[in-house]
């Protein structure tokens, strides 16, 4: 069991001892909610501090919001292990910020990259995982629509800020997130793509 799950299991045990009217199902959901919170918050704090120390907090925030906005709806491949997650996240954001600060993209390059991202999102979003399958086709349609709208908004933001590192950072954050939803990335990471679709088709988890 990984660190967030260990911590959440301990907290859930304390909760179960104090609130005895909770069902097993509800406790499992509480346990999951706490694990999600812990898994994200401590890594976020470390990366935020690192960005402040490296004096790139403003650019990091742009990358974080652009990436996060699209990832919320499009999802994508996740690290399998806790110990690979933090270095991978740090490396990911470092690459986005470094490329954004060094590469100046013109309007044609921005449009071309966003066209690729839009096509990827249109075809493969939402890319769920074995850990969090999206089985409902209604929800999948809604998430696909939201992902497409987010790409369009990010494109507008990149064009509005063109000629500055902010524009390039938005472009690279969107590009990297679009790569994370591709089936080939799932294959390379050893994850299964389209788990939710399989559950919906066969009716099994």
């Amino acid at each position, binding site marked *: 069991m990984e660190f967030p799950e260990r911590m959440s299991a301990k907290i859930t045990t304390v909760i179960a001892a104090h609130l005895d009217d909770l069902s097993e199902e509800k406790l499992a*959901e509480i346990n999951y909610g706490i694990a999600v919170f812990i898994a*994200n918050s401590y890594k976020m704090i470390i990366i935020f501090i690192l960005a402040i120390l490296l004096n790139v907090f403003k650019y990091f925030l742009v990358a974080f919001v652009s990436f996060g906005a699209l990832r919320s709806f499009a999802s994508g491949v996740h690290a399998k292990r806790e110990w690979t997650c933090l270095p991978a996240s740090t490396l990911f954001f470092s690459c986005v910020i470094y490329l954004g600060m060094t590469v100046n993209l013109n309007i044609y390059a921005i449009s071309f990259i966003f066209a690729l991202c839009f096509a990827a999102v249109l075809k493969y979003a939402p890319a769920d995982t074995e850990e969090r399958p999206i089985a409902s086709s209604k929800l999948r349609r809604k998430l696909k629509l939201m992902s497409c709208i987010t790409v369009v908004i990010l494109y507008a933001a990149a064009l509005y800020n063109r000629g500055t590192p902010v524009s390039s950072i938005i472009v690279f954050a969107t590009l990297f997130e679009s790569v994370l939803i591709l089936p080939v990335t799932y294959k390379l990471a050893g994850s299964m793509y389209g788990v939710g679709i399989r559950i919906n088709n066969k009716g099994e988890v």
Partner: protein
Amino acid sequence: MKRFLKPLMVLISTLALLIASTSSMACYAWLLREPKMPESLIKAD
């Protein structure tokens, strides 16, 4: 201390349930690893 423990547990449980139910509709785990979701949260048609 004990009087505050139960309301605190209720608050933590409520927030955890809120995070759990929203994360079944959108991806919360932006930073590359997500815990396994309980089956009760998996929505199907």
